[in-house]
């Protein structure tokens, strides 16, 4: 039997959130945390969480698992259970809608703020825009982001200034376009990030790197943006 403690909050019924304890029979298997949630939902169908692909590519089920942000679907119990106990909370720093479901509006706004789409001021050719394998390799470690918000919600700078500091996820995406040889909006992109908060609130503590379920390195990407901003002469 596994002891699971889950954060519960229903906006129509609860004055404040509380932790609810469950016992789950895992059959001795090293289940994924998401499988445990399904077993809990069989016990109590009101338990609420997001899920979709169940293989770590859609980014729906980011949550705080025994104190660490991660994806429930690719976190096996053997990687997270302490003393036979599993504690599940919503990702921190964003408002809770219900139970493990958070309101991600601020996170998405920060993503949109960096204009996450290719911009090129030259007319498109009749075929693809050519890009060498070396140029393309610069996008590796950037384009794989799944927008799960594990990183940004683990970042104290984001906790303090979610509306001003873009956050690790948004900045990783900003660099993804700055690094793309097909994008010509470098100057405009940098100009929009050139203030004391958007980028420079990153203090390099690398919580984002520690929790990214895709093994990406936002701190490194932020470092590249910093260098671009500094060499721009501001």
């Amino acid at each position: 039997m596994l002891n699971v403690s889950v954060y519960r909050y229903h906006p129509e019924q609860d004055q404040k959130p509380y932790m609810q304890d469950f016992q789950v029979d895992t059959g001795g298997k090293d289940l994924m945390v998401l499988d445990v949630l399904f077993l809990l939902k069989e016990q109590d169908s009101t338990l609420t969480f997001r899920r979709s692909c169940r293989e770590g590519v859609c980014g729906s089920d980011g949550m705080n698992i025994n104190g660490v942000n991660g994806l429930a679907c690719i976190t096996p119990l053997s990687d997270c259970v302490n003393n036979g106990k599993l504690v599940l909370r919503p990702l921190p720093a964003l408002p809770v809608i219900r139970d493990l479901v958070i309101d991600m509006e601020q996170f998405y706004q920060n993503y949109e703020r960096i204009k996450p789409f290719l911009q090129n001021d030259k007319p498109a050719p009749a075929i693809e825009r050519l890009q060498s394998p070396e140029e393309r390799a610069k996008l590796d470690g950037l384009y794989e982001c799944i927008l799960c918000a594990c990183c940004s919600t683990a970042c104290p700078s984001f906790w303090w200034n979610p509306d001003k500091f873009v956050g690790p996820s948004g900045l990783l995406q900003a660099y993804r376009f700055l690094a793309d040889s097909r994008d010509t909006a470098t100057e405009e992109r940098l100009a929009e990030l050139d203030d004391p908060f958007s980028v420079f609130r990153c203090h390099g503590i690398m919580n984002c790197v520690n929790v990214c379920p895709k093994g990406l390195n936002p701190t490194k990407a932020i470092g590249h943006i910093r260098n671009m901003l500094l060499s721009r002469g501001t």
Partner: protein
Amino acid sequence: MGYPVVVGAIAMSEALRKMSFEAIVIGGGGAGMRAALQLTESGLKTACITKVFPTRSHTVSAQGGITCAIASHDPNDDWRWHMYDTVKGSDYIGDQDAIEYMCSVGPQAVFELDHMGLPFSRFENGRIYQRPFGGQSKEFGEGGQAARTCAAADRTGHALLHALYQGNLKGGTTFLNEWYAVDLVGNDDGDVVGVVAICIETGETVYIEAKATVLATGGAGRIYQSTTNAHINTGDGIGMALRMGLPVQDMEMWQFHPTGIAGAGTLVTEGCRGEGGYLINKDGERFMERYAPNAKDLAGRDVVARSMVMEILEGRGCGEKGDHVFLKLDHLGEEVLESRLPGICELSRTFAHADPVVEPIPVVPTCHYMMGGLPTNIGGQVLYPESESESRVVGGLYACGEVACVSVHGANRLGGNSLLDLVVFGRACGLQIEKSLSEGFESKVATQANLDKAMARLHKLNSSEGGESISAVREELQKIMQLYFGVFREGESMQKGLQLLRDLKSKIDNLHLRDKSGAFNTDRIEALELQNLYEVAFATAVAAEERKESRGAHARNDFTERDDENWLKHSIYYPQDERIGKRDVNFKPATLDAFPPKVRTY
């Protein structure tokens, strides 16, 4: 702030809040977002309604690539060869006018994705990387294996879905994220005039009125116990259409992907075999050489899946239970695996506890794709087949992507063709709507009775006092489909399965919604989804039992041969009387002679 609306409290005829658009797209995956982009750019007031945030849609899980004759790997590649392969792959019940359209306009659609920012992998000359996939040939099958699948490593679906979302952000598309479409609203003429939908966050139910409604709700792989599909693939569009009395086509045709990770069901791309991987049985034998001497591991998916099951049934399966085979990749070397197949390495380590760099991946055929769906024309207009040769257009209703059956996949889809299908027909759908609305398509407004009809299912669920457990009934349904309608099928056993499904109907109609609250009520959504799964499963079962031949993915032990005399046809399931009709396959491509049916070997 506050959550004033509790859905369960809405009385039968109480007025629903209404939102109005010119066009709505239900579904925010690849097809839905491509359609939404087209519509937004055309200036029509459009909303994309999606039950998950768009980048959580199942397109994200596509791995190997998008097949298209962009002539990058081979400068002489020709879309007609791609068309030939697709027709052959479909086992000749793909519609040749639609396949011609997809293959010929495909390159434009792929280049457009590059321009939108999709980070395709590259060749040394800077062009898009293409890899070999199953069923691909040059020179109409005479020139050997082609390499036609455009890839972004093994994360092409993720890259495509994000690029499309980004394109829509740039274009200014209106999204209703985390809204769930419950049922279509039909007017007194039988035209579709929008949908009743729930805002999941608050629980509010709204009538979203539109002149054009696009179903882009994707597949329904969750009817099976073992599937590569996401939890959200519940056939919502099929369910909604069937409840409106609209027929569906070729529902017996389900693709079992040869390489799902045994136990977990997660997909391992065909690109693994394209890059040089191959399947082995417990003796270490590369058994596909026996079943498909030429194409070997790159035969059509249906052929490979059946061969694997034969190996397992004949006692040459791997593992303690002998219930899977192995996909061998280690000979490709760490460098190739980490650069071309990084996602697969990750998935295999996580879900199979096997590192492909040093050991093979345990794999088994796993439900992957619904070839059937709502019959449409090339412009995505949903058709109501009235006889084998005649169909009428259903006013106001469109479909594209996996929910549609246009049909470019026929009885078996080729790998990499689904992503092409999404973007080509998503766009075509948008173009057709633009045209129809500019020609002044008008339909009668919905009456209260029309709305009540669309609300009936939700009302019933909301007032359930007791009844069946949602998760238990879902499990029962999935077991029936897995057991009686799998890779190999047989009349007697299908009849038994069909009876079990009939018996299950009373439970489906008597689900107990324990949670009646409004805010983010996933219990309610899951109940509604389960009813859609049932609709899909039942149509599948009836069609599968009726098609008395073996063709493409539909393999029967009691009718082992293809029967072109009787079944070179689409099957049509009519929900009113649970009857199967037939519909002619299109053999009239516009620019070349049709490819006549031939014996299909690889």
